[in-house]
C-alpha cells in the first residue's frame, strides 16, 4: 500500500488527504514525522517539546486540509511551513533555550552507551554551533543539510527567495566551518 501511495503525485496525495483517506494520512505521518521531529528538535533543542510540536503540526494539517489548494507546493513543504511557524512562535514566547537542556535531552534512548556518548557529543556540538548562527542561517543549515530539502523548498518554507537562501547558505556554511571541529580531530 505504501508503495502505491509513493507512486502518486503530490496533487493526488493532497486530494486523497483532503478526503481524509486513512492510508494516505498514515503514509504522510510515517514519512514526515521523523524528519519534522529532527527539524524541530535542532531548532529548539528540547526533545519533549519537539515531539509535542511535531504532533501539533499534524493536527494543524488535518484542520487545514479542507482549505488547502494545490498551487505547486508539495505537501512536505506545507508541513515544514507549519512546523516553521510553530517553531518561530515557540521561540518568540519561550526565548532561546540553553545548551544544558540539549545535553540532557539529546541522548537517544535506543542507542548503546558508546553511541549515546558519541551522539551526545555530536548533537551538543552541533546544537552549540547552530546557536552561534543567526536564526535564518541555522534554519537554512538544518533544512538544506540535515533535512535534505532543496533550495526551492527552503525558500517556500521560510518565505524567502531562492537567491536569499543561497546567500544565507554560503555564509552559514562558512560560519559553521569555523565553529565545528575538523573531521578526524
Amino acid at each position, binding site marked *: 500500500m505504501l508503495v502505491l501511495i509513493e507512486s502518486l503525485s503530490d496533487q493526488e496525495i493532497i486530494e486523497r488527504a483532503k*478526503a*481524509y483517506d*486513512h492510508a494516505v*494520512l*498514515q503514509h504522510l*505521518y*510515517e514519512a514526515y*514525522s*521523523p524528519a519534522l*521531529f*529532527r527539524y524541530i*528538535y535542532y531548532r529548539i533543542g528540547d*526533545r519533549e517539546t519537539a*515531539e509535542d510540536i*511535531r*504532533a501539533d503540526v*499534524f*493536527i494543524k494539517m*488535518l484542520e487545514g*486540509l*479542507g482549505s488547502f489548494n494545490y498551487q505547486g507546493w508539495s505537501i512536505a513543504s506545507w508541513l515544514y511551513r507549519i512546523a516553521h511557524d510553530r517553531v518561530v512562535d515557540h521561540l518568540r514566547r519561550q526565548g532561546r533555550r540553553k545548551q544544558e537542556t540539549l545535553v540532557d535531552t*539529546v541522548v*537517544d*534512548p*535506543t*542507542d548503546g552507551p558508546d*553511541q549515546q556518548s*558519541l*551522539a551526545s557529543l*555530536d*548533537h551538543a556540538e*552541533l546544537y552549540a554551533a547552530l546557536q552561534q548562527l543567526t536564526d535564518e542561517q541555522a534554519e537554512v*543549515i538544518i533544512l538544506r*543539510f*540535515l533535512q535534505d530539502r532543496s*533550495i526551492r523548498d527552503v525558500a517556500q518554507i521560510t518565505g524567502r527567495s531562492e*537567491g536569499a537562501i*543561497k*546567500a544565507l*547558505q*554560503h555564509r552559514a*556554511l*562558512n560560519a*559553521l*566551518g*569555523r565553529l*565545528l*571541529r*575538523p*573531521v578526524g580531530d
Partner: protein
Amino acid sequence: MNDNLSELVIDAWQNGVSLETLCKQYPHHADAIRQLINPLITLQQVNAPTLSPRASQAQADFLRLAQHYRAQAAAKPKQRRSLLTQRWLWATATIVFLLCLSGNLVLSASARALPGDNLYSVKRWSESLSLAFTPSDQQLAVRIELVNERQREIASLVALNKPVPNGLLDEVVNETQSIELALAPTHTNDPRRDQLRQANQQLQTTIAIIPSENLGDDVKHHDLIETLDQSSQRMVASASATPTQMVKLMLEPTIADQPIILSDPTVGPNIANPRVPPKPQTPTLEPTEVVLPTSTSTALPTVKPTKVPAPVVKPIATATLVPTLLPTSTPLPTDVPTATELPPVTALPTSAPTNLPTATENPIIGLPTATPVVVRNPTVVVPTKVPEDIKPTEMPTPQPTAAVPTPQPPAPVPTKIPEDSKGQPQPISHN
C-alpha cells in the same frame, strides 16, 4: 567564491563528487571549497535523533482524529441531501404556492363583482385593505377613485336592469360628502377637487337614469341628486370664499339637513334631473320655508341664476294678500264718523301703508329677472317677517273693533282719504 559557485560545488559534492576533485576543478577556490565542504562532512556524521516510544501513541491519536474528520466530512453532504428531499418541505412550498395563486385569482375575479355577487364582499374587503395601507396623503385620491368605482357599479346594475341597493346609494352619497368635507381645507387648485367634482357629476347622471322600479321605496332620485348637487355647489362656493367664509360654510348646517327644502321638488326644475317635473306653485303662508336658504344666499346668485325661479311666487302671494284686505277695512269708518278722533283714525290708514313698504319690497324680489334665486337670497328674509308684523288675517278684525267705539267726524275723512289712498274712492263718494 560567489553564491552560485558555492551552490554548484555543494550540489556536486552532494551528488558524489569528492572534495579533492572539486579542489582540482576549481584550484583558485580550493581553500574556500574546503571551508565550505568540511562542515557538510561533519554534519553527515551526526546521528539523527530518533523519536521516543510515545511517538507511536501520538500517531494513533493522529489517525483517530483523522477518522473523526472523515466522519464529519461524510456527514455534511448527507444532511444537505436529506434537507432537499424532505417531503414536508415540498408539501409546504406547494401549499404556499397554491394559496398565493388562488388568492390572486380570487382577487382578480372579484374586481368585476357587482353588489349582490358572491365575490363582492371580497372586493370590498380588498379595497378596505388597500385603503388602510395607503399613505394618508394619498387616501383622498383613493377614496375618490372608490366613489368612481361605486358609480360604475351602479351604472352596471342599471345596464343589467338589476335593483340598486339603497345602502349602496346612501353610502356613495355620504362618502362623496365626506370627501368634500375633507377637501375643504385644501387649496382651490388641488386636482382632487376637480376629480371629486367630476365624480359627483357622473354620479348624479348615473343616479338620474336609475329606473324608479329599481330603487327602494324610501329612496328618491331627486333627494340624492339634490344632495350631491348641494355638495358640488359647496365645493364651488368654498373655492371662491375666503378662509373664514369657507369655515363658516363648513360649520353651518348643510342643506341636506333641512328636509323641507331638499325634499321639496317645488323649488323648481332640476337641471341635473330633468325627468323630475316641478310641482305647481302653491303659495303658502309658511315663511319658515323661505328662511332656511339664507345660509348660502350670497354665493348662489352668481352660480345658477335661472335655476329656481319658482319661489318668487311666495312673496307675491303674501304681498297681494295685504292690499286686498285693506280695502275691506276702510269702509268701517263710514259707520262711525267722528271728527274729534280723527288722529287715531288717520293713523290706521297710514299705519297700514307704512307697514306695507315691506310689501312693496317683495314685488322687487319677486321679479324673476331681478332676483331669480329668492330661495337663497337674504333679502327674502324680509318678507318672512312682514307677514308676522302685518298679520293680514288679524288686521281687518281689530281695526274695525278699535275704530268703531271712537266717534270719528265724517267730514275730515273724505278730505284725507283721497290723498292718502288712491284707488279707494268708494268711502269718499259714499259720504
